[in-house]
């Protein structure tokens, strides 16, 4: 009766979680940026699958007479935004419209930054599903840092255009959570591409997927282990011990070039990059006590966790997350489907937000990802109900700038500010209403979805012939 996609993913250990931040609270210290590129690498070609993304053709566009939720300041009522050369050129009560600009009258509707979903399996668990397209968990070994999600992404996954229609312009596609260390994530622009390289966000850092708790021990319990949570922790530590050793050898060789270089190891290369601060750790973890243990492991080996994904018990350690500067990539109301998800509360985001940690609304679900605005709205109401109201100005950050931070892209996307990429949504109404949906979506200034114009609705190769073209909305 139901899609049960998530059920299947959980069966394979794919379903997981994430965190975020607020403006009213102290901004967690961010050391990752400063470290980027400083470490030597063990490979002469650190970017073997470079992005070939080229922005789609755009024209100078002004959207006027709109309410702008900027994620960078208070709501601008009845304002305007100028998109030029793929960038946001101006935002304010008024903007100067160049002579060649297409002027869109927003008629009192809302404009927000494009949504960023930092927990997706699009492309790696592509529709229509089944074994042939189940490419998200390399469940052959509990530690597989050597795999890269991008090598599983099917660019013709019909879920991509639906995500775009839901306003998602940037996705982090993660390996599943069957493994303690699941492999590299990839950050994609939600755009048509013949190859995954054509969808890759230029310059985005890689993420590393790690997973706590029930999934790894369930998947490997009868297959040589780990079969317990203590086995899980031994597994992470053993991997990091090897990685520290590997990094030291390579850093030494990179510095002096004495003798033959050490032998390359694909998995350890990835872990060494995390230790050097060049990759961001995204850790699937439900329970408060396990998150605290993962933080200690990170301290032991000198890496940082960027975001806990799922974190249904994040509210129990919201103070710790704030202190550590770790985001929480969270669901509004998923819970109770497994023991470690039992203590889910709808006010999780509001509580974490109030404690000063970064909140991110994530999906881990191809359907929920299309309505992250609705997920945020549910979490806002849950906060209001317990006396922790969350403003729209704050909640928009949960969907945009906070996940952009989790991906290390908050200098490029996630807010409506001059100079940022023109990833923009024009909504049919207040984005936190159940009746609103994206009407138009721009990526780097190019209009890639228009609900009112069937010719501006991307159809994947797969859909041709198989999926009825209704010529209306998604």
């Amino acid at each position: 009766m139901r899609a049960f996609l998530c059920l299947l993913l959980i069966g394979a250990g794919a379903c997981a979680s994430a965190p975020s931040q607020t403006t009213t609270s102290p901004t967690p210290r961010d050391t990752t940026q400063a470290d980027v590129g400083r470490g030597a690498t063990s490979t002469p070609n650190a970017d073997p699958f470079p992005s070939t993304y080229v922005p789609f053709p755009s024209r100078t566009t002004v959207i006027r007479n709109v309410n702008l939720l900027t994620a960078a300041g208070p709501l601008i009522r009845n304002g305007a935004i100028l998109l030029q050369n793929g960038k946001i050129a101006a935002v304010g009560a008024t903007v100067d419209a160049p002579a060649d600009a297409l002027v869109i009258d927003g008629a009192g509707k809302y404009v927000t930054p494009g949504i960023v979903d930092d927990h997706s399996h699009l492309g790696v668990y592509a529709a229509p599903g089944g074994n042939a397209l189940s490419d998200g968990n390399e469940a052959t070994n509990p530690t597989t840092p050597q795999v890269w999600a991008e090598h599983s992404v099917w660019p013709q996954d019909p879920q991509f255009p639906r995500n775009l229609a839901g306003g998602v312009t940037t996705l982090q596609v993660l390996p599943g959570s069957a493994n303690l260390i699941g492999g590299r994530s990839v950050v994609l622009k939600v755009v048509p591409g013949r190859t995954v390289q054509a969808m890759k966000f230029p310059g985005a850092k890689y993420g590393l997927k790690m997973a706590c708790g029930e999934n790894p021990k369930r998947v490997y319990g009868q297959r040589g282990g780990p079969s317990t949570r203590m086995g899980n922790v031994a597994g992470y530590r053993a991997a990091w011990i090897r990685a520290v050793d590997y990094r030291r050898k390579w850093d030494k060789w990179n510095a002096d070039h004495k003798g033959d270089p050490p032998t390359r190891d694909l998995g350890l290369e990835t872990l060494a990059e995390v230790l050097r601060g060049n990759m961001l750790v995204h850790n699937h973890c439900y329970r408060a006590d396990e998150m605290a243990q993962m933080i200690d492991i990170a301290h032991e080996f000198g890496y940082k966790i960027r975001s806990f994904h799922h974190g249904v018990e994040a509210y129990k350690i919201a103070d710790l997350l704030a202190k550590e500067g770790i985001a929480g990539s969270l669901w509004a109301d998923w819970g109770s489907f497994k023991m470690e998800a039992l203590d889910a509360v709808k006010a999780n985001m509001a509580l974490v937000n109030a404690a000063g940690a970064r909140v991110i609304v994530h999906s881990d679900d191809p359907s929920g990802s299309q309505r992250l605005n609705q997920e945020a709205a549910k979490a806002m109401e849950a906060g209001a109900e317990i006396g922790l109201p969350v403003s729209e100005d704050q909640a928009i950050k949960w969907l945009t700038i906070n996940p952009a931070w989790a991906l290390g892209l908050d200098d490029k996307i996630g807010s409506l500010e001059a100079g940022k990429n023109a990833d923009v949504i024009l909504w049919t109404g207040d984005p936190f209403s159940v009746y609103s949906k994206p009407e138009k979506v721009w990526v780097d200034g190019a209009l890639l979805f228009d609900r009112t114009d069937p010719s501006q609705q991307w159809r994947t190769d797969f859909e041709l012939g198989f999926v009825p073209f209704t010529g209306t909305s998604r």
Partner: protein
Amino acid sequence: MISYKLITRTVITLLGSTAATLNAQTIAITGGKVYPVSGPVIENGTVIITNGKISAVGANVPIPAGAQRIDATGKIVTPGFVNSSTQLGVQEIAQVNDTRDMTARGKDNIAAAFTVWEGLNPNSVMMAPARKEGVTSFVVVPTGGLIAGQAALVDVVPGTTTDMLVRAPVAMVAEVGDPQSAGLNSRGELIVKLREVLEDTRYFQSHRDAFDRAQTRPFAASRLDLQALIPVIEGRLPLLVTVDREADIDAAMRLARDYNVKLMIGSGAEAWMMADKLAAAHIPVLTGAENNIPAGFAALGQRQENAGLLRKAGVEVALIGNAGGGDEEAFNVRNLRQEAGNAVSYGMTWDDALRAVTLAPAEFFGAGDRVGSLQPGREGNVVVWSGDPFEFTTRAEHVFVRGREYHEKTRQDLLIERYRNLPGTHNTPPPQ
């Protein structure tokens, strides 16, 4: 019938004792915008609940003396919502096997005799969150196999399953979309199997004596399963067929015609493609409004406009809360109102969406005389909403089930109390 006078006296007698736990009282909800669903909206309407049942609904209804008054001025009053299909109460934690009671082993994937509600857990901690958001009744359905078993309609009230039951059985459930899960190889074979079982039911029905003397040929289903299917071939118990693909819906309709089965379609991803035929055959559809992914080769045409398009064509539609959900489905029965909001967003009228979460499912499952509308004689299942029930900012301010108001703390509320001020406390305040 209990006289009005007697009711009043009863209320007065009981006030001041443990009135909160009793339903033998009169409640007057006044001043609200009342949606009876069975009739037109009433501005500034009054709903009277007496002895657990609705006794009056209208614009100019006298308030009985001694009635507990609920001022609903500026609010919206609706029947309690009815979720048309869920595993609430029979699946507490999807990945903990001893909390899963929604599937029967059956024989050859036929479990028609399976009465899923016998395994219902009235103490599920997910009941209160559902009720808190206005879901006061639900249809608990079995899943799995070819014939999954029988469904029941229950009210979300504390007590035993006996206390909760409104009607049972309310439908026989068959899953027709996936031959593999039915232990068969192809769709055609699946339909043949269903026909064989229905044929055998017919034969069994008219040859009981011979069967009891062991003088009949072997049947495709067990005695109890055949017996359970007799009301289906007699047209007394609807057959709820879970099916998505257009061709499979068509096959189910042919089968229903051939055996005079009263058919309902569940899930029905591609039902919109044959909306006119479903309307002509008066076959209702239970579906969601958030699914638009071609999630399998049997659901390539899945789209969010399904519910609205079906309704536009004249098909009766009920919405399923969290229809696209997976393992968290039972926890999120409370999202029925979100499903309704999305149905409106994708083309259903607001009134039809309200009907699809109240009276429509009640009627499909033969309980329209008990729940789903605000009419005298119906159960006192009433919700006072702070605004549009489908909007996120709206709260169910008063939830009555069988005339009793519920506002108890959920397990989630208790957790929040513990951890709201970190580091939190291990003490739980005693119940008031």
